C-alpha cells in the first residue's frame, strides 16, 4: 500500500470505530486525541483492526507511533508496503 492508501485505510478504521466523528477536516499533523474523542479503548481498536484486516502486528511499545495520522502512516508504511490494496 502507498502512504495515501494507508491513510484511506486508517480513515476507514476510524469511521468504523467512531461513525459519528467528522473525519473530513482531520488534520494529519495534529494528535488524534486533540481532534477526536478517542480513549485508550479506541486506540486498542485501531491496533486490533489493523491486525484483523491486514495481519499487521503492532507491539505495545510502539503504540505511541499512532498519535496522529502523519505519524501513523509513516510508522505503518514499511509494515504495509507489501500489502496489496483490495
Amino acid at each position: 500500500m502507498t502512504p495515501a492508501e494507508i491513510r484511506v485505510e486508517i480513515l476507514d478504521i476510524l469511521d468504523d470505530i467512531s461513525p459519528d466523528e467528522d473525519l473530513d477536516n482531520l488534520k494529519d499533523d495534529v494528535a488524534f486525541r486533540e481532534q477526536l474523542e478517542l480513549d485508550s479503548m479506541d486506540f486498542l481498536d485501531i491496533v486490533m483492526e489493523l491486525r484483523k484486516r491486514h495481519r499487521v502486528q503492532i507491539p505495545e511499545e510502539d503504540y505511541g507511533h499512532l498519535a496522529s495520522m502523519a505519524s501513523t502512516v509513516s510508522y505503518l508504511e514499511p509494515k504495509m508496503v507489501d500489502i496489496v490494496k483490495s
Partner: protein
Amino acid sequence: MSKYDTIIIGAGMSGLAAGIRLAHFDQRVCILEKHYTIGGLNSFYRMGGRDYDVGLHAMTNYAVKGSDKRGPLAKLIRQLRFRWEDFKLAEQVGSSIRFPDVSLDFNNDIAMLEAEIARDFPSQIDGFQSLCGALLDYSDMDGGAPDFMRSAREVMARHISEPLLIEMLLCPLMWYGNARENDMDYGQFCIMFRACYLEGFGRPYKGVRMILKNLVRKFRGLGGELKLRSGVSRIEVDNGKAVGVVLDDGTELQADRILSSAGSVETMRMCDDVTEVDVAKAGQLSFIESISILDRMPQDFGFDRTIVFYNDSENFHWERPDTQLCDSRTGVICSPNNYLYDADEGELPDGVIRITTLANHDRWCELPDEKYAAQKMQQYDEAVESSVRFMPDFRRYVVDTDVFTPKTIRRFTWHDNGAVYGAPDKQLDGTTHLPNVFLCGTDQGFVGIVGAIVSGISMANRHCLQA
C-alpha cells in the same frame, strides 16, 4: 472435541458483550448458558399474553447521539460497533426520592435536583455542588484511585452536613447498584451518581428484549456460537491451567481461556482444583418484585413518576432482612408507562406498576411449597400497602399480578443467594487463582445493564484480546 479460543460462561449482558468483542476480532468463541433463554439477571418472560422484564426498571447512563462521546453508553456503542439507533431510549418523565415529609424530584438534567435541594435544604446546596465537583471520573474507575474504597457516607459527610439529605441521595444509588449493606464504596457511589443523577434514566420501548436481541444478533452475525440449556458442571484444570469445561450433559469442550459471568464463588465451585469455596464472600442482597397490571394508565389516576425511591423513616436501611421474608420499609416503584416514547411507538399496551423491596433468600427457600405460594400473595399485599403511602392508591385498578422472589432469581440465574448486584467486594481486575480463567459481570465490577455490558467489554479487551 470442539476447541475454542475463549469459552464464555453465561449469556447475560456481560457475556454477550464480551462475545461480540471476541468474535469481531476473529476468535472462535462459544457462550454457554444454563438457562433456556438469554439475559441472566436482566432477562424477560411472557405470561398470560403479556411481556415482562425481570431487571430493567430504567436503563441508567442515559445519553443521546452526539452528546457525551466519552460516557459509558457511547463507549459501549462504539466498542460493539452498534449504531445509536440500536440503543434507542425513551427518556424518563421524571423520578422522585420520597421520605417522610420531604420529596426530591429529579430528571435527566441535574439542574432539577439542584433546584429541589436548594428549595428543601437551602443550607446544603453549596455542599451538594462541591460533592458533584469531587466525584471520581469514569477513567478512575479501575479501582486504583485512592478514594475508591472509602466509605461513601464518610466522603459525603465532608460536603453535606444534613444527615437526611445524605440518606435521600444514597437511596436511589444503593437501590440501583450497591452490593454492600448499609454503606457504599465511594468509587461505586461515583459510578452510580453519574449513572443516575448526571446521565439519568431511559428505557427502550420494547424493554430489555430489544437490547438482548441486538446483542445476540450481532454475536451470531460475527460467527459466535451460543448454546442454551448448556450449564457448565466443571472447569477442567490441568497443571494449574484451565483446559476446558464439561457440560451438565457430559459434553466436553476445550478452550484456551474461560471468561465467566457466573459469579466469583460460583465459578470457583466449578473448578476441578478447588475443593472448598468461601460462600461468605457471595452477595446477600436480593429482592422481591411485586408487579401489578392495571386497567388504566398510571397517568390516568395522577401518577406520572417514572421511578419513586421511597423510605418510610429518616434512616435508610440498606440491609438484608434477617428476621423476616421481606422488608418493605424502603422500596422502588417503577412505571414503565412513564417514559417519553416517540409518537410512532405510542403507549405500552397496559398500565404497569412494579414495586421492588428487600428480601431474604434463605427464608424464602426454606418455605414449603404451599406456604411459598401463600407468602408471595401476602408479601405482594404488604409491598403494595407500603408503596401507596408514597403514591396514589392503585389497588382497585389491578387486573393481574405477578411476583418473583429471591428463590426465583436464584432458580434462573444460579447466583448464590439470588444476589442481584453480586458480591460486595468486587474483583475489579477480573483475575482468579487460575491464569486463564477470568471474571466478568456483577462480581467483577459495574452493575446494571450498561455497567454489565462495559464489564464484558473491558474484561474481553484486557484478558482475551491483548494476550
